[in-house]
């Protein structure tokens, strides 16, 4: 099998319309030293690739490209790893087709 170049989800998100609520992230990761298995899973499962490992080995979220699916909430809100809310009314992703 040929090895394919990894898919750049950023290119996909570029097609979407967003109204980013600057300075008001609707999702927050609780401070941690070592990420839980749930937090680590988010790096892969988030369809907008909002979660990444920083240089200190902690999981960070940048929800600018978030499609507001709620997957990370289902996985990681229960154990207190993240705080999840919808963006303020009118902000966030604006689907043209949906």
């Amino acid at each position: 099998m040929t090895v394919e170049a990894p898919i750049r989800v950023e290119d996909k998100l570029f097609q979407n319309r967003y109204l980013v609520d600057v300075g008001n992230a609707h999702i927050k990761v609780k401070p941690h030293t070592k990420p839980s298995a749930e937090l680590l899973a988010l790096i892969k499962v988030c369809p907008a690739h909002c979660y990444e490992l920083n240089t200190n080995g902690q999981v960070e979220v940048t929800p600018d490209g978030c499609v507001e699916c709620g997957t990370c909430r289902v996985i990681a809100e229960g154990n207190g790893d993240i705080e999840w809310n919808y963006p303020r009314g009118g902000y966030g992703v604006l689907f043209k087709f949906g």
Partner: protein
Amino acid sequence: MIEERFDAIVVGAGMAGNAAALTMAKRGMKVLQIERGEYPGSKNVQGAILYADMLEKLVPNFREDAPLERHLVEQRFWMMDERSHTGLHYRSDDFNEEKPNRYTIIRAQFDKWFSGQAQEAGAIVLCETTVKELVKDAYGKVIGVITDREGGEVHADVVVLAEGVNGLLGTKAELRDRPAPDNVALAVKEMHFLPRETIEARFNLKGDEGVVIEAAGTISRGMTGMGFVYANKESVSVGIGCLVADFQKTGETPYDLLERFKKHPSIAPLIEGSEVKEYAGHLIPEGGYKAIPQLYGDGWVVVGDAAQLNNALHREGSNLAMTSGRIAGEAIFQVKSRKDPMTKENLALYKKMLDDSFVIKDLKKYKDMPDLLHIQSQNFFLTYPQLINKALQNFVRVDGTPKVDKEKVTIKSFVSARSWTGLFGDAFRFARAWR
């Protein structure tokens, strides 16, 4: 915010919320509907197939001005392995009827129209407003909502929670749990634009005829999930969804799965040369009957995806949402007409009416299916599709091997993969869950 008091507040302007708001407004109730999106539909994602019957009950002449894409004349089910698919196609000219049964739609456009119907009937729709919390009185009865608007508290006799699958408000108010990873699927979807003649030629259509393809098999890489390709007028919706718990377990990425699905030799030619204009992701409730939460209480009812009313096996959700919204609206109106308070006992009427509808009857019928598919996902989504496709290739390929020998090879491949007891067990369990 708004000083006056309402008969009902509906949270959400999706399929369920619009149906509820329209039903109550039509009966003269004072309805406030609150939607967080820029306009109704701007946050919503669907395949999307619309079922006419359930909409007809709300807007009898919807065909005159609703934004519809294509009416379906053909449905394909594909069982896929890496390079092939085995298909079951049903096509009938009967579906070219005067009042077609199913259509493809684009949710952002459809929801805007649907909400317009509720507004025409007198509902007040407030967009760009997120409801943050439910307001309860000292006895725990829901009496209104708090929004993110300035001074954003509004009161009503009853709140209809039509907030969709995430159901944030219901969870915060401890009316129901947050969805569990094995009760929801994450679907990702793209909109591929092509000239309509190209779509018609590739899908074998004329005029406004439409086709949908539902696909299962190795495309979900052993996870419980399905892919879809739906033909719209000038676009093709392509998506794939799998259980969140399975994504979590396998570490597969949703976009990688979608890319592979698009590159499958059976799918790629259908969307070749298209311009992609949107990438969306959304959850689908998959827990079925056993996952339905408490549906009503003092001053509130919950409808649609927020109540897990979704038939994942048949890919029906919007019609269950519309129907539960309509029934909730009718039940609330009945309670109100009797001048009874919106208590838990009185709102139990909603549940009673829902139990009598296809919504609960269908979900009950398949109550064991989610468990079976989840536990057996490797067999149903990897082993069988591979075996069946191999068997058919063996059957179709003409190479001088006597047919008896071909048959033996096929049977042997099934038995060695699953053993006789395994095969019979699966067939039995599947039949029982289907019944």
